[in-house]
């Protein structure tokens, strides 16, 4: 019954006529924006995208942003370099989900004249573009990207990110050297071990040993550096870490092997040294790579504002303006904001009237009307008409900056969890060194050389390869598997934390609801049969068709626009009047419609919390629509699943009490707080935490960012603002609340496998150390045991890829059932 949009996968509204013929087949689409993007893809000859992609893209936005400000050289320099007549620019792209997206963007842009080279990185969603300013401009490039449904933003990487990246590539070189060397040394070691059994002449043995020595030396000196540096740092800080026994073992084993090579003694350990370094580096590399997630920098405000040139003569439509960087705006400046743009500074409206969108700040999904004299906040969206505002606060003192400061404070107060392995490590280190010393002291009574070898083999065997691989490989496997299911983890530790949560706190608009208006119920004001009801809906949809008011959206999804009206007049803030078959119709506020026709009072007004919209004509009152924000599918299931897991659910919203309480009632949430500011929300969560509760937060708006930072675990919806996405531990790409359940299932499976891995590693080390101390383990046996235990740990971790979400199908089924039930209720009313 429900049809998915061919482009974005969203449900196609009933009776929608949007469709496009691609490769000879007709495909339904949900909105004109999807059709436009699909058309663009097809005209560029790239419709293969639909075959190649593994994930649906975001639904594209209808409004086209104005990118001309990026043609300004000063602005351009912030994310580009000019080299040899070409600009090298870095753009951060939002909406990239799979490799097909990068393929699409690369192939589309390279067709553009003047683009010499483009490379899109999938992991961090950044495009490197080399282009010729003679032939094209930045705004054209950005517009071309937007045509495909992706949002381009300038990418100026912060320094920390850059350092992390450099460190990572250095570690990769170390890992590569150790890996290649390890294979050579290992191969030669087989020959040496075989020689131990079958006999080998001394000259050949020495040749093989010198070969190993030559290769192991750069591995130790170059690849092993991080361990020595780490050990030195931890000794200086008087908190010996895992690096200390590692370094001791590496140096001792290497020196003993060099000594044995030169004087022809019994054993060399070159294979063990290089293998240690490789496995330990591997686990570190995996860990470091996880930290470099695909998170965008927060970009909430445009780079520059249109500063009105007061000295120049006023032209008729747009006042003359020049671009001014946001940071250089001072109070008293007058700026101009066309519709569809973000307000760049706090200020007071001096000319024009419009509606602005502030849902990011207070969760109110209906826009506010503003006219001359009204206060507006930086970061709100201007929807309807051009505004002129006088800046009242510099960028530093803006309300948005205040939010960011609150965020920084909340971040520093976040409770810290020590990683299990870290807590164990310090004690383990001291124990190992003690055991090595004791066994040396014991065996030294009989034979000094043998005592040294045994102490060494204790250090070598104890070197916890499997233990150190256990955690990072398990987390890496879990993170990869979750990403494939549309769940991005920023912080692997949260998998451990997910089991100890007591309270789940939800944001309202955009999280539990879709932030999209929908007809909740219809009251027919005069007797109608079904066909007439349908016609009335069609009239309402036709009247609202050209309106940008968010309540109008509710009608568009409900019915196809088939009625042709004449003389449509829009009364701003009141409603719309139109003529059909000689009759005047009015849709809108009660007071507006009452001027045309008396309206019976509502019998059910008390049950409804949404907005009321009436439809009347000159002869009779026709219908009363109750329009409210739509509940996100899966919300009820998630809350009942939490309830059965003994987690209490709470609703925190900046929205009005009536709307919040109504939603809380509908979803069986006992505790709801309305009209919360970001600071209130943080205070509430910290109060819960001071009572010893651990808190899960789900949210999306800018005002949720500080709360996200202070909650124990935070989950953001994919449509969340950049600031919030950056704070969240988890990001839900596919925007379905059933993913939260998947995440919990996965966390459980991960903890299970992690426990198995740690248990196995401890068991191996626990049995091997005493045996080594007793002098029972030959070096070749230790080497085999160590690699086998590491391999087992890695393979066990990879099992996570095969975990299936238990409840997924169940929730999806109930969600669809609920949806259809809701819509039938609506029709019945």
């Amino acid at each position, binding site marked *: 019954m429900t049809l998915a949009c061919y482009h974005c996968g969203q449900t196609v509204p009933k009776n929608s006529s949007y469709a*496009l*013929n*691609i*490769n000879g087949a007709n495909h339904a689409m949900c909105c004109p924006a999807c059709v436009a993007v699909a*058309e663009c893809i*097809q*005209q*560029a*000859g790239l*419709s*293969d995208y639909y075959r*190649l992609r593994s994930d649906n893209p975001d639904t594209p936005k209808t409004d086209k942003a104005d990118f001309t400000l990026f043609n300004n050289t000063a602005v351009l320099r912030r994310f580009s370099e000019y080299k040899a007549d070409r600009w090298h620019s870095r753009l951060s792209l939002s909406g990239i989900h799979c*490799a*097909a997206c*990068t*393929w699409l963007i690369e*192939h589309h842009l390279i067709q553009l004249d003047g683009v010499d080279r483009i490379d*899109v*990185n*999938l*992991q*961090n969603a950044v495009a490197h573009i080399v282009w010729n300013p003679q032939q094209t401009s930045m705004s054209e490039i950005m517009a071309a990207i937007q045509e495909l449904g992706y949002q381009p933003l300038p990418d100026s990487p912060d320094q920390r990110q850059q350092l992390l990246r450099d460190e990572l*590539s250095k570690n*990769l*070189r170390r890992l*590569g*050297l150790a890996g*290649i*060397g390890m294979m*050579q040394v290992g191969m030669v070691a087989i020959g040496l071990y075989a020689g131990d059994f079958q006999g080998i*002449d001394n000259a*050949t043995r020495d*040749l*093989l040993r010198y*070969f190993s020595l*030559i*290769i192991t030396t750069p591995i130790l000196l170059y690849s092993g550096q991080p361990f020595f540096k780490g050990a030195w740092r931890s000794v200086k800080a008087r908190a010996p870490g895992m690096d200390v026994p590692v370094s001791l073992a590496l140096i001792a084993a290497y020196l003993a092997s060099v000594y044995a090579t030169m004087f022809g003694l019994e054993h060399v350990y070159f294979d063990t040294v290089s293998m240690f370094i490789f496995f330990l580096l591997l686990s570190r590399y995996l860990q470091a790579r996880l930290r470099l997630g695909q998170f965008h920098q927060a970009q909430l405000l445009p780079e520059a504002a249109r500063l009105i040139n007061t000295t120049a003569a006023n032209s008729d439509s747009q006042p003359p303006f020049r671009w001014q960087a946001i940071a250089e705006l001072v109070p008293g400046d007058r700026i101009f904001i066309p519709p569809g743009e973000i307000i760049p500074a706090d200020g007071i409206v001096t000319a024009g009237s419009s509606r602005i969108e502030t849902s990011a700040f207070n969760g109110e999904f209906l826009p506010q009307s503003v006219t001359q004299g009204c206060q507006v906040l930086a970061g709100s969206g201007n929807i309807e008409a051009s505004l002129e505002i006088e800046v009242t606060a510099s960028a530093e003192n803006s309300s948005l900056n205040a939010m960011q400061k609150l965020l920084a404070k909340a971040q520093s107060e976040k409770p810290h969890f020590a990683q299990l392995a870290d807590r164990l490590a310090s004690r383990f280190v001291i124990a190992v060194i003690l055991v090595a010393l004791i066994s040396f002291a014991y065996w030294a009574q009989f034979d000094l050389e043998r005592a040294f070898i045994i102490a060494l083999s204790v250090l070598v065997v104890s070197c916890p390869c499997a233990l150190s691989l256990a955690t990072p490989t398990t987390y890496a496997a879990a993170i990869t598997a979750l990403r494939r299911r549309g769940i991005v983890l920023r912080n692997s530790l949260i998998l451990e934390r997910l089991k100890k949560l007591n309270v789940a706190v939800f944001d309202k608009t955009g999280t539990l609801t879709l932030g999209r208006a929908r007809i909740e119920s219809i009251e027919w004001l005069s007797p109608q049969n079904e066909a007439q009801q349908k016609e009335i809906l069609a009239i309402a949809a036709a009247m609202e068709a050209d309106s940008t008011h968010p309540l109008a959206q509710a009608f568009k999804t409900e019915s196809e626009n088939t009625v042709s009206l004449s003389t449509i007049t829009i009364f701003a803030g009141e409603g719309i009047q139109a003529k059909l078959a000689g009759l005047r119709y009015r849709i809108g506020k009660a007071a507006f419609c009452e001027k045309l026709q008396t309206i019976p009072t509502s019998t059910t007004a008390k049950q409804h919390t949404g907005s009321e919209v009436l439809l009347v004509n000159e002869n009779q009152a026709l219908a009363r629509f109750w329009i409210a924000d739509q509940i996100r599918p899966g919300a009820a299931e998630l809350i009942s699943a939490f309830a059965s897991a003994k987690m209490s659910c709470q609703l925190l919203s900046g929205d009005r009490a009536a709307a919040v309480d109504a939603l809380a009632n509908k979803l069986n949430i006992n505790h709801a707080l309305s009209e919360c500011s970001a600071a209130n929300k943080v205070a509430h969560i910290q109060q819960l935490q001071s009572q010893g509760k651990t808190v899960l937060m789900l949210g999306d708006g800018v005002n949720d960012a500080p709360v996200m930072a202070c909650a124990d675990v935070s989950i953001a919806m994919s449509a969340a603002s950049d600031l919030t996405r950056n704070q969240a531990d988890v990001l839900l790409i596919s925007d379905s609340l059933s993913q939260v359940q998947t995440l919990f299932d996965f966390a459980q499976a991960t903890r299970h496998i992690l426990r198995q891995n740690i248990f196995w590693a401890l068991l191996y080390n626990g049995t091997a150390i005493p045996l080594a101390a007793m002098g029972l383990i030959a070096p070749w046996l230790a080497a085999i045991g160590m690699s086998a235990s590491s391999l087992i740990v890695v393979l066990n971790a990879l099992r996570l890829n095969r975990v299936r979400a238990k409840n997924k199908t169940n929730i999806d089924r109930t969600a669809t059932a609920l949806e259809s039930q809701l819509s039938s209720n609506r029709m019945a009313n």
Partner: protein
Amino acid sequence: MDSLYLLLPIALIFFGTAVALFFWAVKDKQFDDLEKEGQRILFDSDQPKQTKPENTDESQSKP
């Protein structure tokens, strides 16, 4: 076993070459995006008519 005296130094040369190649590949950022590079090869092979946009449908929509 005398051949070892020739073969092992050759192995050393190979080792050095392999490490040098790997370092070059890291510097060339070939390991920056493993996910995409893994899939890219699957995309380009099936594109016989990439240079020719399919205009048939466009002409239908604009008679």
